[in-house]
């Protein structure tokens, strides 16, 4: 393959990998939009949802694969919505009115707890995740191999991003979610049920994260630590793209993955080992030049 072909192939692969980062980044943006908080447990919650979906789905898979996978996805999404809402109501709510740092540490604690609980129930081995099609299926367009899984993942994430952007900017519920994140006291005085909005925000984010969890597990199998490394990329994407912008987070996640891929191959001194540093160098530069992120709105706090 010529170097242009390699280039395009790397971009295509990067977009697929980036889609997974993007999905988790979207979930993090969603929680941040709704609660003003970064949830470090987002990846763990996604993995938990995937395990629950797999367990239930596997009961149906012997009867019919497609139906089984579908049941698994629906159960996973519904269960994680409930888990997200539950965590907000019974864990995060207790920290309401406290220090932001305390809440962030609480989410880190949740991550450890959830990962451990998953290991206790399902073990720490990789478990194959049943999916609609064989995830190693690929087709070739103009000499570029495109995996069906990559295409599915990419399109799913783009669709979810569009839905989220519409939810936040065009719907009443979106306005309510953002209002509660911005000033809960004032929102309550306007009659918005703050507690319910927070639960919905956490629930939606968990459901969204779980879709990413399933897509990842379909390709890479299921493991309690599936999202540990990906969380780092997703956080970088969220910060680069701007915490207030779903589109920004997705674009940044895709950009990070593509750049990482290209740098690993075309810059010999980076190679495979230094690849992981790419998002952080990018993060560093962007925070210096544009602290609110590429797409974020500047938020001003007056005292």
């Amino acid at each position, binding site marked *: 393959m010529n170097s242009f072909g390699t280039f395009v192939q790397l971009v295509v692969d990067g977009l697929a990998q980036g889609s997974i980062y993007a999905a988790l980044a979207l979930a993090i943006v969603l929680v941040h939009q709704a609660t003003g908080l970064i949830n470090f447990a987002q990846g763990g919650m996604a993995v938990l949802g995937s395990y629950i979906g797999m367990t239930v789905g596997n009961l149906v898979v012997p009867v019919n694969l497609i139906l089984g996978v579908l049941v698994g996805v629906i159960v996973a999404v519904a269960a994680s919505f409930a888990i997200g809402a539950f965590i907000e109501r019974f864990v995060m709510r207790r920290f309401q009115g406290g220090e932001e740092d305390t809440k962030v540490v609480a989410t880190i604690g949740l991550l450890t707890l959830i990962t451990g609980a998953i290991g206790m129930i399902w073990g720490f081995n990789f478990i194959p995740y049943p999916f609609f099609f064989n995830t190693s299926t690929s087709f070739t367009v103009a000499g570029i191999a495109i995996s069906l899984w990559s295409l599915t993942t990419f399109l799913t994430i783009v669709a979810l991003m569009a839905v989220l952007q519409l939810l936040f900017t065009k719907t*009443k519920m979106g306005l309510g979610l953002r209002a509660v994140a911005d000033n809960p006291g004032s929102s309550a005085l*306007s009659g918005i049920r703050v507690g319910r909005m927070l639960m919905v925000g956490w629930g939606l984010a968990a459901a969204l994260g779980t879709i990413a969890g399933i897509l990842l597990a379909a390709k890479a199998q299921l493991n309690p630590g599936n999202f540990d490394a990906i969380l780092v990329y997703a956080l970088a994407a969220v910060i680069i793209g701007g915490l207030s912008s779903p589109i920004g987070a997705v674009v940044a996640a895709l950009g990070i993955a593509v750049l990482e891929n290209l740098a690993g191959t075309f810059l010999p001194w980076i190679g495979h080992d230094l690849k992981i540093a790419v998002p952080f160098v990018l993060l560093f530069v962007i925070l210096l030049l544009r602290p609110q992120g590429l797409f974020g709105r500047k938020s001003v706090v*007056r005292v």
Partner: protein
Amino acid sequence: MLLEVSGITAAYGSVQVIENVSLSVGEGAAVGILGANGAGKTTTLRAISGTVRVPSGTITFKGQDIRGKRPEEVAALGISHVPEGRGTLPNLTVEENLRVGAYLRKDRSGIETDIAFILELFPNLKRRFTSNGSALSGGEQQMMAIGRAFLAKPTLLVLDEPSLGLAPSTAKDVYAAISRLRLETGIAMLVVEQNANLAFSVVDTAVVLETGRSVLSGSTAELRGNDEIRRAYLGG
């Protein structure tokens, strides 16, 4: 009576701020609350809107007991509270800030009419319609807060020191708009204000608080005639 507050107490933790406050607001009436710093003016408003716990006393609104209700429930019943510090939603635009006020309403055309009314009442907000709340000056944020509260279409508008931190001329403008709001909509108001002269430009009657107790109430004319009140709150 639209609102009847009788013998309430309120405390932040173990610090009792209100010991015995009573006041009432009739349909369409405007009542002021006067008092020195720390007299319990803000806490009285917060007790009414459900943002502070009220261990004893009664608060009835439209004949319904509202003591102990959560702020969102009180808001849904028709009390709009413009809080101290203006309650700005900093990362939402002026338009979104106003629409948050109308969150519980279903009458779309009514909401648009009311937004148009607020923008006409406060032309500054019209100019800044797409700016973030945080980009507004203090006066503009106060106007936005009043607009947001009005958009809930309340029966009772509760205003916590609308002149706080504003230049005298801006404070005057804000009060002129509040007067117009009352004149044109007939909405009942409960106004906390340190500057009694400003408050008297809007209210008909007022209650005076001293260290957590309501000690005196009367029409603005009566209060103006009271030497002690004149010295303490009206500047001679």
